[in-house]
């Protein structure tokens, strides 16, 4: 989106004769300033702007009077919230739990969605400064879609996975949650191997399953991070290369596609977070215990959420 370069500030080294300005979509967000030793990148600035926009919208909605007979905006918002809550119910299967999870998941959705759309907004990435880097004049935009920077996506992915674990601890208790990863109760069952010799094989396998679940948590973070980052960043590169082929006309359908991809990826991010939450809050042992009473066999818990 940064073909129409508008130079607002020029830091040109007079000794450099080559005045050609280069710009290419970089994998990382470029620094645009410093506060002390803290580097501010353009993606960080954009995400602050997004937070600011969301805060203002929320404040407007907070002080708006809602009536029993809904107005147009209220009707629209109620439609969205109702639809999202119903979708939430389909995953959790319980309105009580979904009311607890919903605020976090929906805020993540809104944050990711607006960040995705900021990246394709005309003007974002068009304003910038020219910095001299090793003899080349490089154009550094002031703004860059925050989800097109891996730091933002890894941060929100970590937040969603860690909060889902905390939520699981609150819902099930510390002992049960830790037991998901380190299967101490299963190891303790080795003591009565005389009654059931198969436990000698089952218990180590269960321990290994627990380790797999622990690795699965890290895999969750990685997949959430790179799915969102990759899609948004690839979209930006796609738009840039399309406007290099035929400016103004060719990128238009791709802008619409990126608009759609923005919604889709935000939706998937929120949906997966929701699924992780509901996995953490469901008790795996419950099924096992009921089966245990019926016959003395152990049901292997499903390794859920390995994506």
């Amino acid at each position, binding site marked *: 989106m940064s073909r129409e370069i508008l130079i607002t500030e020029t830091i040109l080294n007079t000794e450099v004769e080559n005045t050609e300005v280069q710009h290419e979509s970089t*994998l990382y967000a470029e620094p645009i300033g410093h506060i002390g030793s803290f580097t501010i990148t353009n993606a960080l600035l954009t995400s602050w702007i997004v937070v600011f926009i969301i805060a203002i919208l929320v404040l407007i909605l907070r002080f708006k009077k809602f009536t029993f007979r809904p107005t147009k905006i209220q009707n629209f918002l109620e439609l969205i919230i109702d639809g999202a809550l119903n979708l939430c119910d389909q995953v959790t299967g319980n309105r009580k739990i979904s009311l607890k999870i919903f605020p976090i998941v929906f805020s993540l959705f809104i944050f990711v969605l607006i960040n995705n759309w900021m990246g394709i907004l005309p003007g974002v990435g068009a304003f910038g400064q020219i910095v001299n880097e090793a003899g080349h004049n490089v154009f550094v935009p002031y703004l860059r879609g925050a989800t097109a920077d891996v730091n933002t996506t890894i941060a929100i992915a970590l937040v969603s996975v860690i909060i889902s674990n905390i939520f699981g601890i609150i819902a099930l208790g510390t002992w049960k949650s830790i037991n998901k990863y380190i299967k101490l109760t299963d190891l303790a069952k080795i003591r009565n191997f005389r009654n059931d010799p198969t436990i000698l094989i089952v218990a180590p396998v269960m321990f290994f399953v627990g380790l797999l679940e622990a690795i699965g948590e890290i895999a969750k973070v990685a*997949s959430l991070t*790179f*799915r969102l*980052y*990759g*899609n948004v*960043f*690839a979209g930006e*590169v796609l738009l840039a290369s399309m406007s290099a082929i035929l400016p103004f006309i060719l990128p238009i359908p791709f802008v619409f596609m990126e608009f759609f991809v923005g919604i*889709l*990826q935000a*939706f*998937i991010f929120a*949906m997966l977070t929701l699924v992780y939450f509901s996995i953490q809050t469901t008790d795996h042992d419950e099924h096992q215990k009921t089966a245990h009473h019926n016959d003395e066999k152990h049901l292997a818990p499903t390794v859920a959420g390995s*994506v």
Partner: protein
Amino acid sequence: MLAKGLAIGLGAIGPGIGVGLIGAKAMEAIGRNPEAASKVLVPMLIASAFAEAIAIYALVIAFSIK
């Protein structure tokens, strides 16, 4: 340049087949039960986004090869 091309080219094969299969199955489902088209659409899009994400990983790798 060749490494970049190979990374995205080979990486796009699997997801391409995957998206194709998802689309084919969705069409089949809609063909069997045309009223379910709206219900099929959203899960289909999600599934194809998962398949597409793998191609995106390859794309990120392709970009990061210098």
